[in-house]
């Protein structure tokens, strides 16, 4: 019996025993978890760094309340930020290779069919699913932009062209900081859409199934 056959038998057995199989692949779940963890650390430590000299208003500017910060002070915030950066960066790299090699990029992200469903489709559920795919696909460029602008601020002497892409230092800081509202907005929209599209079963399939 070949391997596909045996998987199918396993699937049939699962159906008989009413054991729900996870909708998500294991690598996708690992990627998702590492993103949640590293982004939370980067967001909180980034706000700690922000407070050393707020992007808007400088030292007299509005400071982020202590509750949202990580690191205690500037040096601690930077330690956390650059430590979590490695997890975040390497996570994106292996996942990028994974979606390319497995060709998941062709059907797991937003595509022409989603746009068609939104424009001419009549099925409201399919429309919400299309929005879901648009939103979670859009976080990829947001994350890449955060890395790109972060590299420009971390090593401006080695990558002066990154600073130039945004005009000047202040603009670069603003775009890097924009990762914070973008990622928080994404997290809210993504959670609500996942619940709407697949309910608890979908959410569990990405978070807990076969993980605990």
């Amino acid at each position: 019996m070949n391997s596909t056959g045996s998987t199918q038998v396993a699937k049939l057995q699962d159906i008989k025993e009413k054991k729900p199989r996870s909708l998500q692949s294991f690598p996708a779940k690992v990627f998702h978890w590492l993103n949640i963890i590293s982004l939370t650390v980067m967001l909180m430590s980034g706000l700690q760094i922000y407070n050393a000299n707020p992007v808007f208003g400088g030292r007299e500017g509005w400071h982020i309340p202590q509750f949202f910060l990580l690191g205690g002070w500037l040096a601690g915030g930077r330690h956390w930020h650059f430590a979590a950066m490695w997890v975040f960066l390497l996570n994106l790299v292996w996942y990028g290779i994974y979606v390319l090699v497995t060709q998941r990029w062709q059907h797991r992200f937003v595509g022409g069919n989603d746009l068609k469903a939104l424009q001419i489709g009549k099925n409201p559920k399919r429309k919400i699913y299309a929005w879901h795919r648009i939103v979670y696909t859009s976080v990829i460029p947001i994350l890449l932009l955060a890395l790109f602008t972060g590299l420009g601020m971390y090593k401006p002497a080695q990558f002066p062209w990154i600073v130039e892409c945004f005009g000047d230092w202040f603009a670069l800081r603003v775009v890097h900081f924009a990762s914070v509202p973008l990622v928080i907005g994404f997290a809210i929209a993504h959670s609500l859409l996942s619940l709407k599209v697949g309910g608890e079963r979908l959410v569990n399939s990405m978070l807990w199934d076969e993980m605990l």
Partner: protein
Amino acid sequence: MAEELNSQNPINRRNLLRLSGYSLGGMLVSGSVLTLAESLAGKATEPLNQKVEELLLKPQTPVPEFPVSAIEPNALIINTYDFTPNINLNEFRLVVDGEVNNPLSLDLPTIQKMSKKSMVIRHVCVEGWAAIVQWGGVPLRELIQLAQPKPGVEYAYFISADRYYESWDLASCLHPQTVLAYEKNGAPLPLDNGAPLRLASPIKLGYKLSKWVVQVTLVSKLLPRRGFWEDQSYEWFAGL
């Protein structure tokens, strides 16, 4: 066990509750645990960060400079860890010593007669702000060459009149745009910015750029004290 936990939705809710319980408990002990984890996170990744920074540094390639029109005269914030020292310019000597064959003790007129490097660069502070500034001064590598470091020298210590202290890797000291500056934005360096002599360079964060430098000591090994802020856990290499 895991299958059982996942087989029904209410139990998954219980899982969620359990996790939120964990995180609440986590918050309660977070004070001490976070401090520990933070020093671990810092200690674990700083060597990696430093390796990457050393790889990125092109020791002999100048960083692109800006036109004079790009200078931001009001953007440079004055930061001092403590106080602005009083320096008697007539008695001022810059000492270059340590593991060298030709220790130096130079007065200001002598330093200002040496070759001068002027550059308009971005000064970047660890706090996140930056300013485009013109600096003029003597390239540090001229002074180091004059002092003839012995083989094995890898670091330089910079001692300031306000007792601020810093240490650098030799490659960054020998970078063509690392200077001991006595000029800022076309005028003599103001006292608050580090007169008579301060470090200026586009390749290091601001806290590495000591003001009121009075002594450069070349050594083959770093001492336990590596710099005022570094000894309070700031990153040592701090390359840009």
